């Protein structure tokens, strides 16, 4: 039995010990925004925040989230208003097929929480672990720069 808060909502779940956090979010909670791209923690499509820190949920056990707060892509928007990072990705072309996008925006939100005005080098170092096949990354960098310019203070 684990008790965790996901996107501000408390949950009590009976999960087997071998359940990964990603599978728990997707199957036990129906939050299918986070994706399994590689299953070995490399690609970043499963990126979620655990107590504000970005992790690969595909190689984290669900039990690690017991007593903790998880933020997924579904938790970024406030009511009907997109998070500035989400809006920036839309406006600047930071996504195409969308499969890596949940991980990208969660990682980008964590970046701007930690470094509100990152340099290009800081963006690239932070986002190193979020792979993308469609965009070639240029517009991901531009999206994050745009979001940094517009982020709530």
């Amino acid at each position: 039995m684990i008790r965790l808060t996901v996107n501000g909502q408390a949950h009590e779940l009976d999960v087997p010990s071998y359940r990964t956090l990603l599978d728990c979010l997707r199957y036990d909670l129906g939050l299918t925004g986070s994706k399994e791209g590689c299953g070995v923690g490399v690609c970043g499509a499963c990126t979620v925040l655990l107590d504000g820190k970005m992790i690969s949920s595909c190689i984290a056990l669900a039990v690690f989230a017991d007593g903790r707060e998880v933020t997924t892509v579904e938790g970024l928007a406030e009511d009907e208003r997109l998070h500035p990072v989400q809006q920036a990705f839309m406006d600047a072309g930071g996504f195409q097929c969308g499969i890596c996008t949940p991980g990208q925006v969660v990682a980008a939100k964590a970046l701007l929480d930690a470094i509100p005005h990152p340099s290009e080098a800081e963006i690239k170092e932070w986002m190193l672990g979020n792979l993308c096949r469609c965009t070639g990354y240029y517009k991901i960098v531009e999206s994050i720069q745009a979001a940094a310019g517009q982020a709530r203070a």
Partner: protein
Amino acid sequence: MIAFDYRAPRSLDETLAILQEYGDEARVIAGGTALVTMMRQRLAQPACVVSVRGVAGLGRIEATNGSIRIGALVTHREAECSPLIQERLPVLAETFRRVGTIRIRHMATVGGALAHADPNQDPPVTLMALDAGVEVQRAGGGRELPVAEFFRDYYESALEPGELVTAVTVPLLPAATGASYVKFLPRTADDYATVAVAATVTLEPDGEHCREARIALGSVATTPLRERAAEALLSGARLGERLLKAAGSAAKTAVDPLDDHRGSAAYKREMTAVMVERALTQAWAEARRAARASG
């Protein structure tokens, strides 16, 4: 993954009791980045997984006499960003920073990096060059052993069943010493090293002769290695480009790399020489800076 018993002790004593009970049927999990991946690939199928994530007292970074003691549960990211480590042992902070990606570093721990015993990992190489000591506990006692004696084989450390890494203690650098970590990444920046070298160079008061050099190598054998032959070449010698090149060549003969996706054994052997020379050159420059700074 095959199902397993999951235990989450809150104290070190409780942890050690569980490990003694299960013996080699238990695996310890901290960050999980290595173990969960292995379990998903059926490379590890423990009957019991013991999480030490909630065990008190294993997450501290503290200065002790002439050393920094890093608790086993300190994450790579915490070590990388620690003001104490950045100031007193910047080469170690830099080494932790080179591991994988930030996501991995948020979870993977210092103790886990040692216990996993993968020769392709970064921190053990630098810890070996810095002559760090590993604190190990078991129910009823503990021991400390040098990092250089901690690795037996590929994925095999010196830990006996029932034992747990609790801390690593890293001596500060002597005066007039420079240190460097070189990670050769010919593919992408998030990869394991094709060849990794950590080196320290300590200068004699004349500023030109080497009092002592320490060289550790990663990704070139089934364990990280100290390269004593190359170290001996440098000890007491007058430093110069040709000597550093010779040290690199000496190191080449000591390694026994595997062919893998990051390079063939032949290439890794050649790159050992190149990277040892580069690491020594950087460490020497740092040593000259340190010697000048201390006047």
